[in-house]
């Protein structure tokens, strides 16, 4: 079962993403801030990281940089951004192969992006699960 780490400071959004991805059949790990997310990924690597940019303490971009260098995120990253200047940010992140979803975002779209990330990446033997339940 694919393991998804969701780092988001707003409890309602965190709950919603968790609700949707769980229904997709993934294992969802929740983190309320960057530091907690880093610790969770370190404890057990994840397939996909869904994270907010603005978070107290360790922000989303720092978290991504830290996790990618360690290989604790195996397949891909989706960034939810609240920023006005996300156009600029999106270009920068897209160059690194990171998906960006501006808020307000559609949970349907998020599910599709996560499924695509999991589908696109070559899978280790026996580790692949279907994106849909």
């Amino acid at each position, binding site marked *: 079962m694919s393991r998804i780490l969701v780092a988001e400071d707003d409890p309602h959004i965190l709950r919603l993403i968790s609700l949707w991805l769980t*229904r997709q059949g993934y294992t969802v790990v929740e983190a309320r801030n960057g530091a907690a997310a880093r610790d969770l990924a370190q404890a057990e690597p994840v397939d996909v990281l869904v994270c907010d940019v603005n978070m*107290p303490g360790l922000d989303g971009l720092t978290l991504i940089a830290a996790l990618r260098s360690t290989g604790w995120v195996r397949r891909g990253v989706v960034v939810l951004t*609240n920023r006005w200047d996300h156009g600029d940010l999106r270009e920068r992140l897209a160059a690194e192969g990171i998906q960006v979803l501006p808020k307000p975002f559609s949970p349907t779209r998020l599910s599709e992006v996560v499924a695509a990330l999991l589908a696109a990446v070559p899978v280790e033997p026996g580790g692949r699960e279907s994106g849909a339940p």
Partner: protein
Amino acid sequence: MRGADKTPCAAPARAAVPRSSPRRPAAAAGTTLGAADSFFKSLERVTDAPGGELRPLRECARLMSVQQTGSVSRPAGGPLQRLWWGALPEALSAGCVAVLLAAVGALYLLTDDAWEAAGAGRRLPDGLRWWWGLITTAAVLVIAFLYWRLRGQARPLAAVQRNLEQLAAGVERDLATLALSDALGQVAQGWNRLLGQLGEAQRQLRTLSAGPTPENVLARFESVGFRRVLDRLPFGVLCVDARLTLRYVNDAAAVWLGRPAAELVGLPVAQVVDNEAVRQAVLAVRTRASSLSIDHTQTDGEQETTLRFRVLPPEDGAAGGDVLVTLEDIGALRETERARDRFLYHVTHELRTPLTNIAAYAETLTKPEFEDEQTRKECYNVIVSETRRLSRLVEDILSISQLEVGTARLNVGEVDLARLLRQMVQDNLGAADEKQIDLTLTLPPKVPKLRGDKQKLSVLVNNLVGNAIKYTPRGGQVQVKLDVTEQGVRIVVRDTGIGISPADQARIFEKFYRAADDAVQSVSGTGLGLAIAREVARLHGGDITVASALRQGSTFTVELPLTRSESTEVARQ
């Protein structure tokens, strides 16, 4: 002695010399005064300034006015005439004595010689004849002395007359040439004083009636206090002449240019402003119809100032006219723009969060895979609570911007603080009960009425009590207390909540600031409540402070003066 008695009456023929002397200068004085009068009148005609400015001049003309028609027969005609007629009795009496003596001497000699010729042989002794000769000589000398003295008086008056005529004809003359010797008595001194006042009036007149060249415009500004107005302007004003030197610098410009205005005047622009573009603009603007604008950044130590020079073309388009340069510190303007951008950024960020939730949960409700009762209920609850949050946020943003911009007006009335606090505690009891928080209110036996805005003070108290409940864990305590102090009243809201770190205490009253603490972030809030509370307290002439320690609770104290000073209210508007 009958002959001697008659002599005064017969005297006029012989006394013509002393009598005619005062008459000639007196007639001259008449002409002189006529010239003076027309001179003053011409001055008055030239001047169309307000009466007050030229009062000394008018006074002068009034005092000097004479009847130009007819003779100067009336001694009370004017001060100059009085000067002349004042000398007359003295001259007349001395003249009469001299004429009498001369006549008696002549009569004696005639009769003596006649008798001798008739052979009467009655001749006076020689000694007596000598005495008569001596007396006659003395009489002649007295007459000569009087003539000399009166001519001495007439000469300066004749000079005064000539100068007055020239002045009236418009020839530039120094007023000092009209002065009389103070030795001529009080009237002469009075005349000199009038000349002094006239000189002053002339100087004012020259300033007022000079042509519209820039330096005269400036001189006119000065005379009516415009310089003071210019010096109080919040932006700089420079006047640059055709040789690119500063002709005028107001106070604000002097401050930005870092030197006193008096030192700057007369210096070349290039020496004062280290910016070639400004110098070029001053040159270029003479051939343009519109102004030029140059931004110039200068550093003074660590402080960086960005000045905007606006160079305006000469008013009349004259190539030689002065160029006006205005100066403003756009650093402050840019800081305001940055603050506005930050505010806008925070507002959009804060608005997006509830909007995101509402949109995402609504979308969830449309999906068949989330049809179970529990999920649907959860979605509805989030949508309702986030809609409330959105509406509260909009209200808070509106309040804080009104309070900060100063458009918020206090609806001042008598406020019963005890009642207000009871009401606010009552309103928050529901939220407190939900978390099993012990919410208490302590009031003093007597609470004075406060002048203030009841509605805004309610918001202040509600924000403090609401925060205390929000950030206090289940089962804690929130105490609201009112104290009467010497200066006014003190509202204290104390909780046993999560507390605020010293670093955050310094910033919690800033708008949109929320402590990074997880315990804070897990509670929904706009980051505006305390900013609004502080603005309301300050609007009432008071302030708000916080004392706190992490995990030990916080105490917010609001001090409100009972008599809010008028100056505070005015300053805030």
